[in-house]
């Protein structure tokens, strides 16, 4: 049974750091992807687009 606990801990420690790095890279790539730029710029402006009420 001792092995089982050690295994879980091992997974936590290694997976934890792997997950940290992988997700960070993924998010940075998504945010920095050139073709996404237009969408983001547009989104940042979207709150100012003045419409008098709900569209439906």
């Amino acid at each position, binding site marked *: 049974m001792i092995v089982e606990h050690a295994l879980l*801990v091992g997974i*936590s*420690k290694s997976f*934890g*750091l792997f*997950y*940290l790095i992988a*997700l*960070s890279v993924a*998010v*940075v790539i*998504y*945010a*920095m992807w050139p073709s996404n730029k237009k*969408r*983001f*710029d*547009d*989104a*940042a*402006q*979207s*709150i*100012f687009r*003045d*419409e*008098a*009420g*709900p*569209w*439906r």
Partner: protein
Amino acid sequence: MIAQLTLIERQYAIMISAAVAVCGALMILVGRDDAMGIHGALVFLAGILTIFRIGESYFAPAPSDERLAHYYDDPSKVAIVLAMIWAVVGLAVGDWVAWQLVEPDLTFGVAWSSFGRLRPVHTTSVIFGFGGNALIATSLYVLQRTSRARLPDQVSPWFVVYGYNLFCLLAVTGYMMGITQSKEYAEPEWYTDLWLVVVWVVYFLVYLRPLARRKEPHIYVSNWYYMAFILVVAILHIVNNLAVPVSLGHAKSYSAFSGVQDAMTQWWYGHNAVAFFLTAGFLGMMYYFLPMRAGRPIFSYRMSIISFWGITFFYMWAGSHHLHYTALPQWVQTLGMTFSLMLLIPSWASAGNVLLTLNGAWDKVRDDATLRFMMVAGVFYGLTTLEGSFMAIRSVNSLSHYTDWTIGHVHAGALGWVAMITFGSIYATVPWLWKREQMYSPKLVEAHFWLALAGTVIYVFAMWNSGIVQGLMWRTYNESGTLAFSFIDTLVAMHPYYIARAVGGLLFLIGGCVGAYNIWMTIKVPSAVTDLAADVPQPAVVGSGALRAAE
């Protein structure tokens, strides 16, 4: 309010209130030998009063379809008023307990007012009462504008607002009667917790439906943060509150977890309550109201996305920094420390975004106290997260843990970040919601700003000093190798700092009262200008209005 509901909605509302009243009656019945019975009476009363309130206007003419051409803002309005009431109550109790540490006999010898019972009244009133209502109000407001979609119906948002406040009321009255689970920020007992689950699920559905029907192709980033707040708080709440009640008629329950597992679960909850209640939701607020008020888009939308995912996944690991050097296995402590340090990146991305958005608009910041509230909030957010990451380092935590340094950190975040961004956003929204040109008195906004800032600075500096002095005294040895100070020596050393903190808190409280008065007068005094009928805030108009007034 009721006149806005259609006939069928009025009927639904009555049925729901009746169900609540029945639950209350059942609680009275099964809990008659226990404090739970009193809560039953409260629930029953809440249900009955709501029925009467609806009944009064039941036969009022049905609303015209014209209402569908506007956003549904009544629930936000009510939640803002409730937020300010909770703010005044919570800050007053906070200052009361602060004075109790100066003069302990301020309990007046009755059970309900002792420090241990009032402290959670303070934390719950400010975090859940003030913060929670402000989050609900602004989230519904922002949701509708950014999706250009109306709320799905007119009953469920009311259920969320009133149901949530019933939760807060049960929680706070419970502590004073001694009903508590003792888990910090999760003190309410099992039936109150269950009620919150129901309310929260409805809140989630109310939030999801307009998002799904939105017109904009992209979901604006504020909604991401609000969504994370709603979802993660649900997960945290359900897991951490798993418990077995003594019986259906007892308020008391026993946690499903014990010892180390409980400690880790509790601080996984506790830290993420900070992350998703006190941070994510308020970041959502900031990402909408700051650009609107400043009249310019957020400096870097990309940075806001990076910081969103960073916060969502780093925070979850960081809870164990509350348990350094305890019986928790060291590898968990180390993981917590690592992730806490990483957290600085997404945190500073947000704080930086605030300042960079304002870069080039400093004249507006100078003239507009509302915008200044938001700017100072950004600065304190940066400061608190830097401090937090620092305190998460094991050797630093060995000094800071258990001392007032933690309290200083908490209130740098709570007063400097949470309260400031909330006051800023509320001052921005109130004129938009009630179709006023500006706040009743921009001068009072200015006064509130300075009171709040002075109060925060005094509070935080007092606690930093006190905490570091305390931590150092605890670990000082004299030459013979024995501890130099008794515990009581350190307590005496704290006294002046406790007075300073209570004075700082008083300033902050006065500021809160000024704010509440100003908001109340804005609502009550009709606007001179009548053509501000548009539903969408007009930053330029409002901004210049505030400018003119400040001059």
